[in-house]
């Protein structure tokens, strides 16, 4: 079965369908509902036998490259750090088909936002490539 990453972003991606303020400015009950939904998604995936992994990433970012011989690594927070794409975390799922991955991503995106209304957050769906070649070679 194919594996997919359902990536959530702190920023970046298409124009938000429903712009909202940062979560720490939501009403406390909306914060609770949103967080409960995240737990619920992990539980649901696990019950379905579709869960592989979930991780959250801290928002601080450092770009690093080799500095050359005898030089320290070169670091930067990147061009336009305020607007560049920034991944917040993911679920990795193991599902029957791409259709199922899209269906689950849409469900994730229906998470409650301010006022308990769906957030319509864009979810970045990426297929995970297999390590080994397919068992049968094409003719």
């Amino acid at each position, binding site marked *: 079965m194919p594996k997919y990453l359902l990536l959530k972003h702190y920023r970046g991606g298409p124009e938000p369908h429903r712009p909202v303020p940062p979560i720490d*400015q939501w009403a406390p009950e909306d914060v609770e509902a949103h967080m409960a939904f995240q737990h619920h998604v992990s539980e649901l995936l696990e019950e379905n036998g579709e869960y592989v992994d979930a991780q959250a990433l801290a*928002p601080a970012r450092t770009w690093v490259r080799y500095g050359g011989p005898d030089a320290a690594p070169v670091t930067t927070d990147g061009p336009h750090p305020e607007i560049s794409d920034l991944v917040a975390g993911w679920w990795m799922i193991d599902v029957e088909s791409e259709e199922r991955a899209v269906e689950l991503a849409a469900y994730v995106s229906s998470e409650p936002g301010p006022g308990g209304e769906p957030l319509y957050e864009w979810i970045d769906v990426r297929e995970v490539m297999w390590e080994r070649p397919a068992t049968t070679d094409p003719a």
Partner: protein
Amino acid sequence: MTCEPTRRSNRVPPAPPEPALRGFGRDLIARVLAGLVRRGEDFDAAEDALQEALLEALRVWPEHPPRDPHAWLQTVATRRLVDARRSEAARRRREEATHAEPPAGGPTTAQEGDDTLFLLFCCCHPDLAPASQVALTLRAVGGLTTREIADAFYVPEATMAQRISRAKRALAGPPARRLDRPGDLAVVLRVLYLIYTAGHIGPGLPGRPPDLAGEAIRLARQLTLATEEPEARGLLALMLLNHARLPARLDSEGRVITLDRQDRGLWDTREIAEGVRVLQSALAARRPGRYQIEAAIAALHDDAASAEETDWPQILAWYDDLLALSDDPARQDPAAVLGRAVAVGHVLGAAAGLRETNRLREVLGDRHRWHAVRGHLHELDGDLPAAATAYADAARRATNVAERDHLVRQAARARAAEPFRLEP
């Protein structure tokens, strides 16, 4: 910012014990291993020999139970080591195994204590990186399986196996120097505390294997039997006095509950009593150190029947003692200065506490805890908008999902400017 996926780490099933270890007390195995290494045996070879002795025991003991399992294992493992050297390991196994019973009079408790201490010193050798010290200590002294240790630190089993075998290789051969300087014990204490905190900051849900905090307490208790050093007892007391509050630290949904809002009826009074007893015996030696002082602060929190009854002036006095241990506390021990700032806030007022945090801006200004403490002090001051901003700044810097979620809640609650409601 929205909330990211939640790891389902509390659902990891317990790792089955390695077959050869099943049914044996982990203490027993660690004590035998400690005895072998203490006599100068190579660490890796000693562990292999002990594994063989355990397999032998599984086969022989059902029909010939030993009078003294410790002596039996030690004898058989020693023979395995000798056999391995002579390259005739397979010969005569059955005969000797059934006649491994030693003459009466095994090692005394004192010798065993020395052996445990020695093994701890080996595992916490200053030449090893902290991650290796922790892994090797849990493996060799704690008797945890490689799988269990890997699960505890969320790394693949192969990675942890490699870390352990590299550490063992680094220790192969005679020790580079004697391991009995006072500084060596400090390293052992730090390693045990690392193990404890790794268990404490984990999800902390019941049944999550393995219980690293409990393991660290068990090892610290063993250590206090082997050394009179008051800091060892100080560390044990500190662990017990903090561990006692663990049942109240998260609610049923896994949400963080801060000390001032915990249901104190859930605290483990037996652990608190033991912690206080151990701390008193340590303080009686009149050689205070940071673990004893931190334990004293924990004891004062544990002693308060409600948050309002907390003896903040006395806590502040202990923090003064803690800071006096460093020449430049803001740089050498910023966590202590930050803890003291909270105490200052409660004794001298929130504004004074906030002033204390200012001297840490350079060192801790990028850490979530600094912002979280300032949020708490602003709230104490009644300045909810400033508190909300500080909590949000803290949430953005958190590196732990439970704490991050907690800080987001604090920010939202402060911004909504409503008094906190206790959960129904």
